């Protein structure tokens, strides 16, 4: 066991750090730091910068444009991105549909989609959840009926993150009602500009519009856009879920938010001292910092196992649960720190270009919306309850 970085890895880390410092556009950095809403162009611009450097898809195979980095290097890379206020790399294309296309797509699909994903030419979104089927995907009802060379797809997808930016959606649709619910599902790639596709933004309780309903109304989709075999979509979906682990613990981001929390506490008054000198509050921050250290240690153990060729089991579920607990707790403590100034709500303050004087201290501006928004963390991607069911079954065999 070696807790320091090797000189190779330290040099790698420094290279990443230097690159980000030189290349991350200042306007984007500022938005991320101030908790403002990023525009489509912000994400795409940054992803294209990483693409140019060859770093947009570290976990992809080298021949498709990935890297030959070790698991540790991939981890370091993700941590540096998070620590440096970069936009999140959108996972829907790069981390979700791309591995499925690589594993199960045909030659034409690979040739067409993979380079476009790599170059951020298409923005993808995910058509899994439905109004009646959240964590229980197998009960989905969006229907696809073969007609000639096409399918005619009808149904509603919901909870679709940033569908308003998307060029493409990958969908699970029902092509058969026979057998078990899982057995009649097919995996389709749908062009968002197809007639019959309508996106309706869903306002969330923090006031943001990040998620959407996607209505599919007799949408004609070429069968050529089907991944693999008809009625085998469940297999591909499960494969995708097993690939969703990367960066899920979000240690880098949590560390960064912890340091922001410490700054807030130092700036907030508590009697004659600051909140950062109040034992009750520092106790809570210490607990959180220790939770982060513990989770980071676990991530590094998993990285070491991967390096040694021991594949991940249900670790993704632990990382999801603990990572989101930490992120939610960070948002709670920030809310607690700012006292009465949690109350003011300036919708425009989340938009870039807002230049008014903040109400109360600047650090308080988007704290409450962030707290509210972040309740999603224990719900999306399979609720934390579902994650515990998975661990109970997969690891504990209960």
């Amino acid at each position, binding site marked *: 066991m070696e807790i320091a970085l090797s000189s190779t890895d330290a040099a790698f880390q420094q290279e990443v750090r230097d690159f980000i410092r030189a290349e991350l556009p200042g306007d984007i950095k500022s938005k991320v730091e101030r908790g403002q809403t990023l525009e489509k162009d912000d994400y795409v611009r940054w992803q294209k910068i990483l693409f140019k450097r060859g770093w947009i898809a570290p976990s992809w195979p080298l021949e498709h444009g990935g890297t030959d980095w070790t698991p540790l290097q991939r981890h370091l890379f993700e941590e540096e991105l998070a620590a440096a206020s970069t936009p999140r790399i959108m996972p829907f294309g790069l981390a979700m549909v791309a591995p499925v296309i690589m594993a199960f797509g045909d030659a034409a699909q690979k040739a067409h989609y993979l380079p476009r994903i790599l170059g951020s030419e298409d923005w993808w979104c995910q058509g899994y*959840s439905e109004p*009646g*089927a*959240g*964590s*229980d995907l197998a*009960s989905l009802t969006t229907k696809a009926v073969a007609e000639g060379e096409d399918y005619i797809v009808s149904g509603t997808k*919901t*909870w679709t993150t940033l569908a308003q930016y998307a060029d493409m959606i990958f969908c699970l649709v029902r092509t058969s009602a026979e057998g078990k619910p899982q057995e009649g599902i097919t995996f389709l790639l749908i062009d968002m500009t197809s007639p019959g596709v309508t996106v309706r933004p*869903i*306002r*969330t*309780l923090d*006031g943001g519009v990040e*998620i959407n309903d996607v209505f599919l109304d007799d949408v004609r989709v070429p069968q050529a856009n089907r991944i693999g075999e008809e009625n085998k979509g469940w297999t591909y979906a499960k494969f995708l879920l097993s690939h969703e682990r990367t960066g899920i613990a979000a240690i880098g981001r949590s560390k960064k938010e912890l340091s922001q929390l410490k700054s807030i506490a130092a700036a*907030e*008054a*508590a*009697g*004659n001292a600051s*909140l950062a000198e109040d034992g*009750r*509050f520092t106790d809570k921050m210490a607990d959180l910092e220790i939770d982060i250290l513990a989770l980071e240690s676990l991530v590094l153990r998993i990285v070491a196992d991967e390096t040694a060729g021991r594949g991940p089991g249900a670790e993704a579920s632990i990382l999801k649960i603990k990572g989101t607990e930490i992120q939610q707790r960070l948002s709670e403590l920030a*809310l*607690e720190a700012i*006292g*009465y*100034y*949690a*109350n*003011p*709500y*300036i919708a425009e303050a989340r938009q870039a270009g807002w230049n008014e004087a903040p*109400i*109360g*201290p600047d650090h308080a501006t988007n704290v*409450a*919306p962030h*707290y*509210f928004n972040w*309740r*999603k963390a*224990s*719900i*999306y991607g399979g*609720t*934390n*309850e579902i994650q*515990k069911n998975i661990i109970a079954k997969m690891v504990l065999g209960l």
Partner: protein
Amino acid sequence: MNFSLSDEQILFQESVDSFVAKEYSLDARRALAAGEDGFSRAHWARFAELGWLGLGLDEAHGGLGGSALDTAVLMEAFGRGLVAEPYLASIVMGGGLVEAAASGAQKSALLPALAAGELMLAFAYAEPRGRYDLAHVATRAEKSSAGAYLLNGHKSVVFHGASADSIIVSARTSGDTGDKNGIGLFLLDRAAPGLTLRPYPTVDGLRAAEVMLEDAQAEPMGEEGGAHGAIEAVIDHATIAVCAEAVGIMRTLIEMTRAYVDSRKQFGRAIGKFQVVQHALVDMYMAHELSKSLTYRAAAALGTVATATATAAATSAAKVQIGKAGKLIGEQAVQLHGGMGMTDEFAVGHYFKRLAMIETLFGNTDHHRRRFAEL
């Protein structure tokens, strides 16, 4: 000893409940929030007619002389529908301060108007660096030649400040920021020169404002420099009022969640059939029962218990209980609603946000736990 509401209180609450059920759909509230004041002046007039505005005010000045428990019963019912009117700011705080500190002439001028819905008050007590310390008053009051006082300072997050006709301001005539002595109360006309308001909506759909004072001329209310005790007592009463509001919110959240888990199916059955979901709801249910019991008790203690210390302890105990239960119930209600709970369309998120903001009012859980321990 008898820990029941009286039959009158139960009937009263039922009548408020039905008003709220009728008038406070989520859409109606959304419409109010989008309006100028953020609430309905028509509703306010109706409150006056029904006697709700004078409920807790002195009978000698047009009130009904109700108890703190009566106010709690009303506030609990308000919580069930997230009532947006400034009852807390104008009646509980504003009216309470007038009763506690004002002169006879001021009471005669203000209280009947308050009870009749013709006057709205707000209370400016918090300051940017004061956190929850009521003695953290940096705002200064200096006696002018005319016998009035000139106020200078910055009061923060003044609820419903922009819709108030007058704002009661805590300001200091002597001593240093943090001293309990030297704090007075001043009645400030909203149109007074030197008063600048910066109004804004709050995250839970209400309204508040920053209040900037530059030689703003105000009328003194009560003894110079001796208002700290009255402020503390009124804020304790306001604390119990928001605890009661929270109890109503919790009950609504539990009912909504109960209904949702019964109707929502996953993996072939209602999610309410999953044991983990059931136990989560049981925890919410128990937390609500305990919160309600302790809030009622604290409300009953206000005014009937002999010492200020006992009142403060009862208040702080209730706020701690509400803080912990509110977090549990609010967060779990959203969690059990899954994605639906995250949307603005569903009511659950709105109730959750109000609960979360009640935690920030008048001292959070940590503040009141410490106060309780130190009493």
